[in-house]
């Protein structure tokens, strides 16, 4: 492989790669604003200027202050090159730390901050802002401009999700390129020039495609902010955990940002994974954190309708076991969930095996009913994160859905139900047949139609509160990790299933997460480790 030298270090590169790309892959950051690994090259911020010391040198004539002569004298300086645009060449000797380059970086930085309002205290980007970081790294000088900065519009509503602040904007055009190149919707552009330059919407349009939050994600400064996250938290209080989006079967990798003081999840951010989502996520995926944190089931309940009362300790398990025990075991229908992890589904499938029932069903969300629209960018046709995983846990095709369950109940083949998850194709009215059964045990993290029919509801942890694995539409097993603690008494699904099994007099023999995963991996064969993030305990 060809190499070039950057600051005395050999960097390998592939033909056609730019200096920036090769350095980024090697883990070296050349300071930049407008360059993004997933977008085209704009080379307009000039922060990534480097000095190519090999080859023919171009000199720019300048004037320089001479202290002895007390006058400006003619001089030259080397012409610098933007690293993001310059294709790497064999044997190039490049410096991004020489005095000329440092001076250029400091000057660019000073120019960008010339009219910046420096309203960091009220800016949501503060704490993760490149202007802040690079100021300390590359400038650290006081402001020389004494006049009033140019004022531009602030708090401009770009659409239902994004607010724009022109004063903070550095015109890197990343947001324009995200709309053009990722979403394929040229809704943003620039207007005016120089210090009046600002991002503007296409006439008669709003920023309302399915990837608007990515404009905020790529914005290196606080110019674009998410209306959802705006003013909710300061980022320096947030910690991050690896997650997998539960919005659809693509399984985009996420950072789950939460405040450890309150155990509250505030937002999702895409986590780079070239095999799955590259650098991106869709708006609906970004907002799944809401669905996961709202409408939770936090305590066990027993009974239906007005007679539904909370139950504590072992009581709900004992009640569930008593209700299920009154039915012939092979007439118990077991509903796995495409919204729950492999581990939860595996535990429930094992319980079905122990009970001796072969009546397995799959509860999932329906794309049409949910208003879910697939696209060729990221959004899968299946709005369930783990359909493949649930099938894997069941050890079969598992084509039977909750519709078939209703048929079997009406046909008298199923007299009791153990159901995982809150999601189902049907509404509560359509699930009426379930309410006629004496024993419907629902293990759920959220309220929904399925748990509403249950005679016993057992709470389980949500995806932010437990470790787990999803299998995406391409068969990649992707682990997510616990971000926040669950409420006392709320345990992961597989543990709750094991407890229920114990109350029914069965031992599932689940050693722990690792044990379940190795059994699942054996069942899945070689495909289990394909794809990006591996499952970790």
């Amino acid at each position, binding site marked *: 492989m060809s190499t070039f030298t950057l600051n005395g270090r050999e960097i390998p590169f592939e033909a056609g790669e730019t200096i920036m790309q090769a350095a980024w892959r090697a883990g070296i950051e050349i300071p930049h604003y407008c360059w993004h690994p997933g977008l085209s090259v704009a080379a307009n911020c000039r922060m990534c200027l480097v000095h190519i010391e090999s080859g023919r040198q171009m000199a720019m004539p300048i004037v320089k202050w001479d202290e002895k002569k007390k006058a400006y004298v003619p001089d030259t300086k080397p012409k610098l090159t933007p690293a993001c645009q310059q294709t790497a060449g064999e044997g190039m000797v490049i410096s991004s730390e020489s005095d000329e380059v440092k001076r250029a970086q400091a000057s660019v930085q000073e120019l960008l901050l010339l009219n910046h309002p420096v309203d960091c205290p009220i800016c949501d980007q503060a704490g993760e802002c490149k202007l802040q970081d690079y100021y300390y790294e590359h400038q650290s000088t006081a402001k020389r401009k004494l006049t*009033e900065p140019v004022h531009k519009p602030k708090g401009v509503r770009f659409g239902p999700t994004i607010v724009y602040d022109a004063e903070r904007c550095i015109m890197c055009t990343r947001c324009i390129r995200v709309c053009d190149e990722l979403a394929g919707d040229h809704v943003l552009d620039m207007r005016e020039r120089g210090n009046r330059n600002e991002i503007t919407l296409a006439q008669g349009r709003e920023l309302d495609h399915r990837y608007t939050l990515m404009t905020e994600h790529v914005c290196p400064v606080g110019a674009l902010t998410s209306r959802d996250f*705006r003013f909710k938290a300061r980022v320096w209080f947030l910690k991050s955990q690896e997650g997998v989006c539960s919005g659809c079967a693509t399984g985009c990798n996420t950072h789950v940002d939460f405040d450890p003081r309150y155990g509250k999840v505030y937002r999702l951010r895409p986590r780079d994974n070239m095999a799955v989502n590259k650098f991106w996520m869709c708006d609906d995926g970004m907002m799944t954190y809401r669905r996961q944190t709202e409408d939770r089931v936090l305590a066990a309940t027993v009974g239906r309708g007005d007679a539904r009362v909370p139950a504590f300790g072992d009581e709900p398990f004992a009640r569930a076991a008593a209700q299920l025990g009154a039915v012939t075991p092979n007439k118990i229908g077991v509903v796995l969930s495409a919204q729950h992890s492999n581990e939860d589904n595996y535990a429930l499938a094992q319980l079905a095996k122990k009970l001796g029932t072969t009546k397995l069903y799959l509860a999932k969300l329906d794309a049409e009913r949910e208003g879910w629209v697939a696209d060729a960018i990221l959004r899968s046709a299946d709005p369930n994160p783990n359909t493949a995983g649930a099938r894997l846990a069941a050890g079969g095709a598992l084509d039977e859905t909750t519709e078939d369950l209703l048929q079997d109940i009406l046909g008298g083949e199923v007299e009791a139900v153990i159901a995982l998850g809150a999601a189902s194709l049907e509404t509560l009215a359509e699930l009426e047949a379930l309410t006629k059964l004496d024993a419907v045990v629902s293990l759920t993290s959220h309220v929904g139609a399925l748990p509403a029919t249950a005679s016993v509801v057992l709470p389980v942890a949500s995806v932010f509160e437990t470790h787990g694995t999803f299998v995406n539409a391409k068969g990649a097993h992707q682990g997510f990790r616990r971000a926040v603690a669950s409420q006392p008494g709320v345990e992961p699904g597989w543990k709750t299933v094991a407890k229920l099994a114990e109350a029914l007099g069965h031992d599932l023999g689940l050693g722990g997460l690792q044990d379940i995963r190795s059994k699942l991996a054996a069942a899945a064969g070689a495909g289990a480790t394909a794809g990006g993030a591996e499952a970790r305990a």
Partner: protein
Amino acid sequence: MAATVKVLTKPPRTLADQAYVPAIASGLRLTMGRFFKNTFSSREDGEIVTLMYPEETEAYPERFRGIHRLTQRADGSPRCVACLCCSTACPAQCIHIEAGEYDESDPRHGYERYPVTFVIDELRCIFCGYCVEACPCDAIRMDTGAHMPPSTSRDHFLYDKETLLSLPGRDGSYLTANPRHEPGDPSHPGVDRERGH
């Protein structure tokens, strides 16, 4: 070294000690003397050193900070922009702020956010003054020179936004020293697209 023992002899009891009455009389003389002095003289005479607290209070030294207050703008709104710098700096974690946004029709929209709630738990506060140092816009001060009035409930020490705004500084002022020209103020250059720059 051998221990040396010094033997002390007990002073002999006199007849007056033995009788008790003269000793009681001399004690009562001191007590009654103080009783009449306190009853008939005043603090100005220099005879009395105690205070009738809480009706009377001692003037605190000039550098005493006192409880917090929130400063106001000229229009009476809080100067605070809910940046959470104070609650970040607070070592006792006694400041709770929820930020909100000015309405889109408000001229300050975009420039400012404001505290929807601002609560200081004065019992948890250690009065270190870090919040005042952290404040970028002179919105929180500790210059009231007063301490919290005693109360019977812990809830009374959770000072909310309105309470903090209603406290004057030692000099009687409510206004911030850092008004900064706000959109809508005559000193502000104007920002919207229609009016230009």
